[in-house]
Structure formats: structure tokens, C-alpha cells
């Protein structure tokens, strides 16, 4: 009797799982959606990358954008192909702030920069290549750049460092650079990756996973000493932030060396977090951090990255002053996703244009 009841319940739960899955696939819109997750594929060295020729429309309450990945696994409507003699290529490395799934491709700062450079009347054609991938940190960018450099033949490489979390992400990914990584660890990683992909294919499982992560997050204060969020901006950051900055420095150096090997120059771009530009957001976060016993220093992360990367001697552009100096108008960042709005992209493109010009980085 009990077994029959159990079987009945499991069958009903499975049927409803299917109904919710179909419903969410039809009407749901989040990064957990299989359509969005279908943009990625597993990569043995990096973990994952954009899937060549993947295509989807990403819609939320704030935006709707078509995302197309070309054959090289980069967000672009066109294939990269061999470089014509009169073409100069600028590559933007980075995370979701570079990939910019929130805006149509033509409105990303890379494309806007390309338009600006080509409007100068030069005989050369400039092509700006968006090599950003959601969730990447300095180490993934370093590995990814190594894997694509041969195909894209860059003249200038601009790794865009997100000062908000890149130090933390660098610490979390440093084992990917370990040449002595044991096979068993790689197998475990591969299994985990496969499981993640399985979960990613289901909207229901994706949401349940996010719920579980939130529970674990809430439980963590009771099993570990509480740590204020946004450590990169803390007045007294955790030791891992200094470690993350050092790893980032090594990654940037590696990118510069790889670029140099391909005959390209490299310069660093620092991308601030929204609250560094948005006063209301800053006030809210400062209160949250203070509530956990911390002290949020608004520009600490930008200053720390500048100081940590200065010894490399690479040209460096901090986008913070340009974003702060933008005239009052529509938001520069989206409210829910904290990524750049089309206006934010315009401001960043203009700032990069100025930086390239002033530093004499424009490939000739």
C-alpha cells in the first residue's frame, strides 16, 4: 500500500516536473534558461567557453537582446577569418561586462569603439573583437587568450579587469594553471562539469540549484565566522584579496607576453562596479556591509588593482572617472543585472577611444 502511494506520488511529481519545465522554457527568462545555457560548452582547460555557432534571444524585464556566437566561439555576427592586409585587430578580453548579453551586439562598447575608430577616415580598417565570456576571471581570460590568439591575430589586446570580483575569482581558479594537477582531480572536475551541464539543461533543476546555493549561503554564517561581503572593497580585506591581486598581475603579464609573441601590444582596462558610480546603490551597499561589521571603501578595489598592476608597466585605463563624469541622464547600469546599459556602453567606448589615442596604442 505504502509502495503504491510512493509510486503514485513519484509519478505525479515527475509529470508536474515536466509541466513546470515546459512552462518555464516557454515563458521563463533568466540565465538559468536552457536557451541561455546553450550558449556554453565544456572546455577541458578553462572549464567552459562560448559554443561556436550558438544563438539565442535573451529577454528579461529590463532588456531583450539577440546573442550570436561565431565559429571561433566569440560573440560576433561575422566570422573572424584570416586578417586582410589593411585590417587591424583589437581584442577585448573579459567577463560578462565585456560579453554584454544585455544589449544588442551593435550597441556593445567594442562595436561602438570599432565604429569610432573607423570613422576617422584612416585607410586602415579597424576590427574590435569581443572575446568576453560570462563568468571568466583573469586566469580564464589568460587561458582563453592563449587558445584563440593564433586564430584572431591581434594587434592590440585589452584585458578588461572587473575590479569588483576579479581578485576573488583569480583565487578560486588558480588550480587551473597547475601543471601537476592530478588526473583524479581532473576526472572529478569533469564529472562535476557533466553534472552541471545536466542541471543547466533543466530550468526546474537550475532554479532548485540556485535555491540550494542560497540556503548554503545563509547557513555559512553559522558554520564559519561571518565575513562582510565585497571584500575587494573592505577597509581591511581578507588575505586572499592580496593573493588574488598577485595572481591577476601574473595573468596580465602572461597575456602581455602572449600578445607580444603574436606581435601585438597590450594594455589593461579597469571596469568599476555599479555602486562606484551610483550613489544610491553605494549607500545601500555600505549599510549592508556595515550591518555585517565591515567597512565598505568605495574605490578601494580600483586603487588596489592600479597599485597591484602598475609594476607591469603596461598602459592602464580606469573607466571609473569617465563613468562618473557622465552627464546626468538615463542609468549607466541596469538596476537588476548591474551590467552596462546602452548609454553605459557609449560612455565606455568614448573613454577607450580617448585612451587608445592618448597612449598611442592605435595599431598603424
Amino acid at each position: 500500500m505504502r509502495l503504491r502511494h510512493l509510486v503514485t506520488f513519484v509519478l505525479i511529481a515527475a509529470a508536474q516536473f515536466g509541466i513546470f519545465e515546459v512552462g518555464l522554457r516557454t515563458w521563463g527568462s533568466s540565465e538559468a534558461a536552457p536557451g541561455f545555457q546553450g550558449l556554453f560548452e565544456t572546455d577541458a582547460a578553462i572549464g567552459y567557453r562560448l559554443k561556436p555557432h550558438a544563438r539565442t534571444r535573451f529577454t528579461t524585464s529590463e532588456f531583450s537582446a539577440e546573442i550570436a556566437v561565431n565559429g571561433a566561439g566569440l560573440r560576433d555576427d561575422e566570422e573572424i577569418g584570416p586578417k586582410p592586409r589593411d585590417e587591424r585587430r583589437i581584442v577585448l578580453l573579459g567577463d560578462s561586462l565585456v560579453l554584454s548579453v544585455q544589449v544588442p551586439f551593435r550597441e556593445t562598447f567594442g562595436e561602438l569603439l570599432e565604429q569610432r575608430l573607423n570613422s576617422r577616415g584612416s585607410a586602415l580598417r579597424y576590427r574590435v573583437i569581443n572575446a568576453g565570456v560570462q563568468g571568466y576571471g583573469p586566469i580564464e581570460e589568460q587561458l582563453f587568450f592563449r587558445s584563440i590568439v593564433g586564430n584572431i591575430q591581434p594587434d592590440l589586446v585589452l584585458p578588461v579587469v572587473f575590479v569588483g570580483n576579479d581578485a576573488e575569482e583569480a583565487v578560486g581558479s588558480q588550480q587551473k594553471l597547475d601543471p601537476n594537477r592530478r588526473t583524479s582531480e581532473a576526472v572529478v572536475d569533469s564529472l562535476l562539469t557533466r553534472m552541471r551541464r545536466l542541471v543547466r539543461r533543466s530550468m526546474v533543476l537550475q532554479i532548485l540549484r540556485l535555491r540550494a546555493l542560497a540556503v548554503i549561503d545563509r547557513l555559512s554564517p553559522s558554520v564559519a565566522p561571518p565575513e562582510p561581503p565585497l571584500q575587494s572593497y573592505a577597509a581591511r580585506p581578507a588575505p586572499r584579496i592580496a593573493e588574488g591581486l598577485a595572481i591577476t598581475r601574473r595573468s596580465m603579464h602572461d597575456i602581455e607576453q602572449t600578445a607580444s609573441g603574436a606581435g601585438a601590444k597590450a594594455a589593461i582596462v579597469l571596469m568599476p562596479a555599479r555602486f562606484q558610480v551610483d550613489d544610491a546603490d553605494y549607500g545601500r551597499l555600505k549599510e549592508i556591509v556595515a550591518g555585517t561589521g565591515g567597512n565598505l571603501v568605495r574605490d578601494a578595489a580600483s586603487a588596489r588593482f592600479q597599485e597591484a598592476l602598475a609594476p607591469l608597466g603596461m598602459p592602464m585605463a580606469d573607466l571609473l572617472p569617465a563613468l562618473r563624469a557622465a552627464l546626468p541622464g538615463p542609468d549607466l547600469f541596469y538596476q537588476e543585472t548591474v551590467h552596462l546599459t546602452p548609454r553605459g556602453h557609449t560612455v565606455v567606448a568614448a573613454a577607450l577611444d580617448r585612451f587608445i589615442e592618448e597612449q598611442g596604442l592605435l595599431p598603424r
Partner: protein
Amino acid sequence: MVFNSLHFVWFFVVVYAAYRVLPHRAQNWLLLVASYYFYAAWDWRFLGLLVASTIVDFTCARLLGRAEAPSVRRGILVLSLGFNLTLLGFFKYFNFFADSLHGVFAALGWQVDFVTLRVLLPIGISFYTFVTMSYVIDVYRREIPPTKDLLDFAVFVAFFPHLVAGPILRATTLLAQIDSPRHISREQLRDGAWLIAWGYFQKIFVADNLAGLANAVFDPAASHTGVNVLLGVYAFAFQIYGDFAGYSNIARGTSKLMGIELIENFRFPYLVRTPQAFWRNWHISLSMWLRDYLYIPLGGNRGSEWQTQRNLFITMVLGGLWHGAAWTFVLWGAYQGLFLIGYRAADRWPPFHRFVAGAGFLARLTSWVVMFHLTCYGWLIFRSRSAGQIGGLTAGLIGNFAPATVDIPNLLVPLLLYSTPLVVVHLCEAWFDDVLAVPRLPVGVRYSIYAATCYLTLLFGNFGGAEFIYFQF
């Protein structure tokens, strides 16, 4: 500690595991310690008030049990009521009355400096003072004998499922269950588990998701057309029901798992067709308390019609004030009082009475629609922050309804999404006239509702951990 927090989940798992293996007397000690911990988790400094209220009323009831002279008994009752009302008055209403008097004097041109204290409202004080007052009054009326066991009494007052937001229990309901050994039946386990799951659904899926809709419409800085105000008011009606009925269900469910039965606090309040029926089905434990300890002592309906109307009005105004120290709650109470009085008057007109009491579909539907909307208008008063906002929203409803401006994606669709599952189960329970109808349905239907409740809560619930609205009362 709120029911929708991980802290409570851990707390209850540990307490329940210990509860199941302990003998009766030790269970009571466990419940007392757990209940005090539950209360202290919010603010330990106010635990003293709870303990003081418990000891004072236990002692007063014991003295009442021994005293025979009416004057002495009255004196003891006055002492107990005075203590409880002073607690309530100071912590809940001091600044309200000080500010109001200051406003009145200022309007008259007198500058009087009142002392305004930064008094923090101890959570649940309105609930546990009403519990202890009802106990002493019952002993005074000789309806129950005073308990001789301080432990049992302390558990009765502090029992954590009902401590901070009710139901407001009577000694006749709970004290006897605490006093005797409890046996937990399979039915109690099943019903308790369902009530907990359904309570969380009502809170996390319905109330907390609809809160955003209601907040947007009731934002004083916002301006909405009448149709969108109406949708916002519907959202608040379901929010407050989901929030409070959800809390009551979790309280009843956790108690059932421990073999203790609490009274139903809600019984399909939005399906009724008269204001009397609404108050028999909404926050039942408060309605009964107000009836037995305020309305009837005022004279109830024993005097003239005018006296009955006066008693109703006073009871409802004080009931409104019980909800919070603000003039909007007083206005809401006055509205409910006038609504009841108006209905009594209209009901004496035979055509009206025949229509409302009629069994025809049209009569039932019409009277339900009118009653639901008059209830919703009460919620508009209740939720507004000022008389000015009540006026503004009312003007929008009447003068600028503009049905073409209905906000479909941001108001109508979410309202339907988050309220429809609640309404479906609500109708099912009402059909069987049983708030525990779901666990008694055929296996396939029952399991479908169980699974859908879990999926909807987990997939679409708002897990922000918002406090229950009634905590502030």
C-alpha cells in the same frame, strides 16, 4: 526568529527531536526553554516582560482562587488588568498618544513639550497580554479554576507556535492540553505536515510575492489610476490573508506535530457574504476575544438597538487600535464598526434580508462581490499610511478609474499567478467546509496538490525572509 527562516527550521528540528523522546513533564520544561529561546532570539531584553506578565497573572489567578469577597476579587482583577494594560499602553501606545496630544495642542496654538520616548515595541506583546488577561478574567468569572502549576502556565503563555502572532488562545483550549500527557496520532502528523507546507506556501509564494505589487500601489510617491489601485488593493487583500493565515497554519501545524491542537484562526473569510460572517471567519481568536471580553461586558446586544450599535462601534474601534498605534488603524476599526452597524440596519429591511439570505446564484454572487469589495476597501484604509493617502486612493478609484490603463504585465498577470492557486485550494476547502480538506481528498488529487504546492513554493517563492505582517501588532 521567524517561521520562514533557516534559524527556525534548525530550532524546530532540534526541539522536536528532543520532544519526541522526553516524558510529559520534561516535554513541558523543553517547551518552556524553547519558547523563551524563540522569543529571546528576537530581543532577549524583552524576555523579562514576558516572564513578569506570566508571574503577575499566575499570582493574581491564584489569589482569585482563594479570595471570596467580591471587592477583593475585583481588586485583584483590576491589578492584573492594570498591569497588562500598562505594559501594552506604554510599549505600544505611549508615543502615539503623546504625538497625537501634541498635535492637538499645537493646533490650538499651545506649545506643550511632551516627553517622547524611543520605545521599541516588544514583539507579540499584543498577543500574550491578551492571552494572560483572558485567563485572569476567566478565573475571575469562575469559568475555570486557576492552575497551581507555574510551569504549565508559563508554557501556556509562551508556547512558541502562538507566542508572537497568535492564535490568541484561551486557557480552556490550551492549558488542559499542556497539563495532560499528549499522544500524537498519525492523522495529526499528516495534517500537521500539510498545514506547515500550506502555511509556508501562503507566506512565501502568495504573501511575499504579492507584497511587491501592493507596495508599489501604496507607495505615497506613486500615482496610479483607479483600476491599478484596485489591483493593488486585491494584491494586499491576498497578501495579508496569505501572510497571517500562513503564520496561523504553520503555528497549528507545528503544534499538531507535538500533539497539541490550536484553534482555527481563518475559515474562508473572503467567501462570506456578510460582515458578521467575515468577523466569524477572519482572525477568529481575536474576534472571539473582543466579543467575550469587550463587546459582551459592554452590554453586547442585550440593550436597545442604539446601545448595541454603540457597543459594536467601540469594540471595532478598539479592535482597530489593537492592530497598531496609528490613526489609519482607528479609521479601519471605525469603518468596520460602521459597516457592521449599517448591515444590521439594512438587514432589518425584509427585501434586503431576503436578497442576501437568498439561495439563488445571482443573489449569492452579487452579495459576495459587494462584500468582498467592501472588505477590500477596508484593506485600503488599513494599508494606507495617512488619511490623505486614503483620500487620494479613493479619489482615484471613483474619479479616475480608467480601465484601459490597467497594468497587465506588472499588476494583473502577477496578481493572477500568485493568487489563483490559493483561491483554487480555498474553494476546494470551502466546498467540503473543512480547512483540512486537502489531506482527506483521494490519493491522486491530494498528491497532485502536495507536489504542486512544493514546486510552486520552491520555484517561484520569495525566499527573502520577510517578517510576518502581524508581528508588528
